[in-house]
């Protein structure tokens, strides 16, 4: 019988828990992915778009003032400088190329912060594909600029009014669309979540971050980083950068989740820190849920981390101990947002600001010659209105 290949199980996590209707489409996607990755024409086109459309390789920046603060050399992997302003574009280009190969001309996406929605709308405009983006009503309010950008590029943005009106419900709604239109549509998931083969596929397309960063560290710092730090929503920027170092046992991998109003407040998005294993959106992974298996609403100041689940491979990295997961509150993230802006002239996304804040909190943890590498997953332009409305940034 068709059981899942080992590569789509990460320890006990992962899998394919979806309605039967989607199984043939997931099989088709799986085969198309394998064939594409073996096809030099596919990889050549992907690499060409990453170089000449996205602007890769993204730079590795030093951070002199921040380094002084934490008493260790800090390096920043600048995914914020990608076209559209975040790492999300790497994945949407890969998946749009696949959709084209499969003859699917309608693209569905979910978005939280709007960065994945923007990245999807962008590549759909470039390829002439129809684009429908599901976005929670609450997130449309928080990330108004990105809603405008998506519409400007011709995407249809559908407000989601169910549940918490955030990323979780947008994802559910996108899956409902896909179950209905599966013969003509491809669903571009924005993170390393969802049913197999999505977590593996999104990791594959994001692994360029880690590959570049590893080579850049060796060239610039003359050694590997002691610690690699990335924020974790679904976990795609973290998985992308971790992949470059996971086989280097001396490199510590740290994922930073959103502690929202505090890990004990019940209002956070720390699925790995405080969740228990369960099934959401097609995968078995750590999940914020109650004892009856009902999904608990997540909370984070940053729309891109405001999700009660997490990619299944992160769950396995946590249980195996290969990666460590920590959490940073809304208030600390806001401080991190200001900090990187002031001391390095780089305005990070609120999601990324969680990773900044954790490194700042850990000042003194590293020896003076132990480099710390942070994935700057995105830029903060989209967050400026939200943060200034909180009366914070001008202080």
């Amino acid at each position, binding site marked *: 019988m068709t059981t*899942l290949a080992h590569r789509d199980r990460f320890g006990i996590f992962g899998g394919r828990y979806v309605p039967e209707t989607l199984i043939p489409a997931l099989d088709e996607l799986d085969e198309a992915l394998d064939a594409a990755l073996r096809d030099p024409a596919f990889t050549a086109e992907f690499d060409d778009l990453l170089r000449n459309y996205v602007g890769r390789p993204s730079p590795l920046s030093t951070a002199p003032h921040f380094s002084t603060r934490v008493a260790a050399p800090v390096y920043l992997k600048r995914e914020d400088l990608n076209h559209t302003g975040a790492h999300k574009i790497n994945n949407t280009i890969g998946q749009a190329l696949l959709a084209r190969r499969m003859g699917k001309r309608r693209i569905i996406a979910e978005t939280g912060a709007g960065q994945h929605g923007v990245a999807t709308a962008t590549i759909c405009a470039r390829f002439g594909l129809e684009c429908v983006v599901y976005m929670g009503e609450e997130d449309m309010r928080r990330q108004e600029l990105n809603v405008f950008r998506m519409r400007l590029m011709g995407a249809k943005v559908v407000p989601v009014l169910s549940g918490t009106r955030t990323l979780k419900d947008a994802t559910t709604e996108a899956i409902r669309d896909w179950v209905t239109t599966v013969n003509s549509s491809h669903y571009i998931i924005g993170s390393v979540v969802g049913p197999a083969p999505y977590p593996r596929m999104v990791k594959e397309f994001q692994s360029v971050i880690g590959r570049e960063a590893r080579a850049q560290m060796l060239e610039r710092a003359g050694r590997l980083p002691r610690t690699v730090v990335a924020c974790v929503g679904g976990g795609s920027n973290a998985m992308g950068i971790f992949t470059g170092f996971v086989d280097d046992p001396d490199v510590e991998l740290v994922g930073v989740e959103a502690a929202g109003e505090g890990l004990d407040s019940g209002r956070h998005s720390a699925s790995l820190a405080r969740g228990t294993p369960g*099934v959401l959106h*097609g995968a078995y992974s750590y999940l914020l849920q109650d004892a*009856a298996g009902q999904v608990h609403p997540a909370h984070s100041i940053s729309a891109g981390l405001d999700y009660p689940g997490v990619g299944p491979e992160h769950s396995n990295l946590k249980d195996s101990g290969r990666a460590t997961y920590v959490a940073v509150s809304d208030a600390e993230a806001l401080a991190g947002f200001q900090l990187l802006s002031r001391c390095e002239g780089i305005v990070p996304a609120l999601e990324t600001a969680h990773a900044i804040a954790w490194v700042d909190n850990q000042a003194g943890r590293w020896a003076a010659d132990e480099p710390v590498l942070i994935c700057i997953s995105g830029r903060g332009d989209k967050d400026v209105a939200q943060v200034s409305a909180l009366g914070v940034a001008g202080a």
Partner: protein
Amino acid sequence: MTPNPITRRFADLRARNRRALVCYLTAGHPDEDRSIELLRGVAAAGADIIEVGIPFSDPLADGPVIQASSQQALAQGMTFDRALALIAKAGVTVPVIIFSYLNPLLAAGPDALKRAAAAGASGVLVTDLPVGADPPREAWLGDSRLAFIRLVAPTTPSDRMAEIAHHGSGFVYLISRLGVTGARAELPPELPDTVARLRAATTLPICVGFGIARPEHAASVARVADGVVVGSALVEAAGRSVDDAIAFTSGIRHGLDATL
């Protein structure tokens, strides 16, 4: 071992040249008391089998009506075990199937299926556990005393249909169309062909669901399949009143029997 009540029900229907009416109700909707009245009323109005939905916070296979009924039930504290208590209390004589997403079922613990059987359930159906997705958990479901009802979709290739039927029991639930649950005006034109493909793949009875909302839908399904499942249209009626749900059920029963 005596055959499962669902299997017996189909044998009995076949002997009388009747088709099965399978009715879906969300446990605890619109509230616990009316949920019990609905189970009894729908059984008395001609249901052959009742699917009792365990409400889930994120029902990705369901349309707006079942989503809303689930939310309403959850808001009043419905859980797996309260749903079982409700089934036990209703005490209907028709077979009852536990209809659930995987997560609340897993949360109910390793003896969840034993408790369900003790409460009087005869079958279990899991919307988001397709064949081959998780062999150990599928074995847990397949080895219990409950019939394990599996789903086939219009997108399912014929060889996979056979595999699905092989791993299920009781009957095969054929999803009539692409998409989520919800009442529709028309049946999909390719339905008879899909049923014929499935028929060639299994000897299990075939029930067709998703979108069945009118007596004439039931009548046309009765010509090709062994039963119909009504869900959203019934839940919508149940949201109005128990009497509306009973009247709706009688209407479908009539449509189902009229052609034979």
